[in-house]
């Protein structure tokens, strides 16, 4: 895998292979139900790409990606509810509003009648929220654990807020029962395949974006900021700007993923965006290898597949398993599966010169590692 993905030709080849698998093979092989399920997993993978950038490369432990995912999802859901109401009800008022509320569409829903506004908002609103929050937090050098806790509190507040607004957000039931997606009938199997194809394409594009960012000068700078934020300042850079840019990118990716999630899955509720789902986004990233390009994607899909397989048959077991994953992977293999080759390699004392610059997996600090390397793997923030 690694050798394949080296160099420019290798990248092109890998990208093409991914495209063929996702866009060609999967739709041809998988039954409709499984394809939709895979589409849902790909949405999580898009979120994971953003988390890999922000957390793996930038050291920003964002425990609130559910917020941005939710913003994108709810914006899309609002549009679809309004469109359905106009198409099928004629009244233009979504069903649940007449049920729980006054039957009047609140003013802040109205802009989302427009498909163009909706598509823009899916990108801009999560981006803007992340921008404001990022500047407020990073400019004041709130970082490390403080940032993690704030982002988590944001997720908690967002979920509580949604639950509290029964009449306008559907409360804890969320929004569901969509029938059309920009005029396409959601019952039509062809349209379902189309939705999947969109999700797969967006994932491929976000991977391309993440790769470009990782390999750009900004990406190198981001690692520098992760490891020694203070040092970067003395070179004339403002780390807050760099971190905010990446945080916004991660938020936008999560927002887009949320917007795709709604038509694919058919429901969005506070249970998909709160504290627990927000942290759950992280486990796949950690398993795959947080600082690598493909690790987060493969990890996220892998965890989602396992969850789909296990949680319906053994719900209790799945939770234990998920808990154990966090404990074992983060505690004992912080570099994720991507660090396995490096670990094994070191055990065998076959230190081949430089590992692929395309995937500098952060080796897990093992007991035998020399001091210098041990230090090199621990971000500065973590050391204090």
């Amino acid at each position, binding site marked *: 895998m690694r050798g394949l993905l080296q160099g420019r030709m290798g990248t092109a080849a890998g990208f093409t292979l991914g495209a063929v698998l996702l866009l060609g093979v999967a739709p041809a092989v998988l039954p409709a139900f499984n394809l939709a399920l895979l589409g849902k997993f790909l949405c999580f993978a898009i979120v994971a790409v953003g988390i890999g950038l922000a957390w793996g490369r930038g050291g920003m432990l964002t425990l609130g990606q559910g917020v941005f995912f939710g913003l994108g999802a709810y914006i899309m859901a609002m549009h679809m509810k309004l469109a359905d109401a106009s198409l099928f009800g004629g009244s233009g008022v979504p069903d649940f509003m007449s049920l729980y509320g006054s039957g009047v569409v609140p003013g802040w829903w109205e802009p989302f009648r427009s498909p163009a506004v909706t598509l823009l908002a899916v990108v801009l609103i999560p981006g803007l929220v992340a921008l404001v929050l990022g500047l*407020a937090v990073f400019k004041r050098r709130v970082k490390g654990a403080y940032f993690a806790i704030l982002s988590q509190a944001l997720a908690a507040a967002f979920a509580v*807020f949604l639950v509290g607004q029964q009449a306008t957000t559907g409360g804890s039931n969320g929004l569901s029962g969509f029938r059309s997606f920009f005029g396409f009938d959601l019952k039509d199997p062809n349209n379902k395949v189309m939705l999947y194809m969109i999700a797969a394409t967006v994932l491929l594009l976000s991977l391309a974006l993440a790769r470009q960012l990782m390999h750009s000068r900004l990406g190198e700078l981001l690692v520098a900021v992760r490891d020694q934020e*203070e040092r970067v300042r003395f070179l004339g850079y403002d780390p807050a700007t760099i971190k905010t840019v990446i945080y916004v990118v991660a938020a936008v990716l999560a927002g887009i993923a949320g917007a795709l999630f709604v038509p694919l899955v058919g429901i969005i509720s506070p249970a998909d965006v709160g504290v627990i789902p927000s942290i759950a986004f992280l486990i796949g990233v950690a398993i795959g290898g947080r600082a690598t390009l493909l690790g987060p994607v493969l990890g996220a899909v892998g965890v989602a597949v396992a969850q789909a397989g296990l949680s319906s048959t053994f719900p209790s077991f799945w*939770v*234990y398993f998920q808990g*154990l994953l966090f404990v074992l992977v983060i*505690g004992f293999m912080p570099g994720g599966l991507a660090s396995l080759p490096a670990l094994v390699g070191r055990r065998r004392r076959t230190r081949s010169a430089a590992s692929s610059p395309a995937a500098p997996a952060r080796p897990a600090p093992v007991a035998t590692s020399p001091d210098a390397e041990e230090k090199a793997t621990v971000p500065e923030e973590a050391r204090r």
Partner: protein
Amino acid sequence: MELLIGQMFAGLSLGSVLLLAALGLSLTFGQMGVINMAHGEVMMAGAYTAFVVQRAISDAGISLLVSIPAGFLVGGVLGLVLEAVLLRRMYHRPLDTLLVTFGVALILQQAARDIFGAPSVDVRAPDWLQGNIELLGAPIPLTRLFILGLSLVCLAGLVLLLKATPLGRRIRAVVLNRDLAETIGVSTRRSDQLTFFIGSGLAGVAGVAVTLIGSTSPYLGTNYIVDAFLVVVAGGIGQIKGAVIAAFSLGVLQSVFEYSTTASIGKVLILIVIVVFLQLRPQGIFSLKTRSLA
């Protein structure tokens, strides 16, 4: 007016629960750089301890008095185990401890669901805590008064321990400068374990306390952990004085916001207040001043 006083008091008792929960978080974070997401589940364990004790001793009064030390012990031992098995190898990776302990939290929650069932259970308050007293015309529930008193007693005990005993001095030395404390012969292992024991024990007591004002469910920890963390952040990590001020301010603010708006908007307002506050004091109310490069 009476309503406002009632709300203020509700805020103070919420604040005292948050304080009990936050003290342990703040201590372990300050001393070891461990962010314990399972701290809420330690609280939950304390609450279920009260439930179990009451099933064994039917008299609500005696069971409460037994539950408090029992909750402390259960919480403390849980913390000790967590420290010994997992966290001591991760002292220099605070962000990772957050995720690892989240995993532990998931496991403990599910265990509670499997043992006690998902629906919430109730613990009866003793007769002598039923009813209200009048304060400036406002009825103050005795349970809330009891919780306030309990947390103040715990706080006093902790402060006494930290300031007046050699053990406390060692703990404070480790908080200030771990490496230096080690080089002058402080056994950081011992004081780490002790801090964890005490901090988690206080969370256990907090769990017992909340059974007096609400029912106990596997989600109890989740409900309090985020707020307890906000107390730590606003108060300044490792700062007891800061935690006290932050806990009571947050409790009162939350009650007042919820009273004047709705519960959900209140939560959002609290978060905004904290983010704005951190603009003014990014390190919290109090912060350690050390002369380090970064």
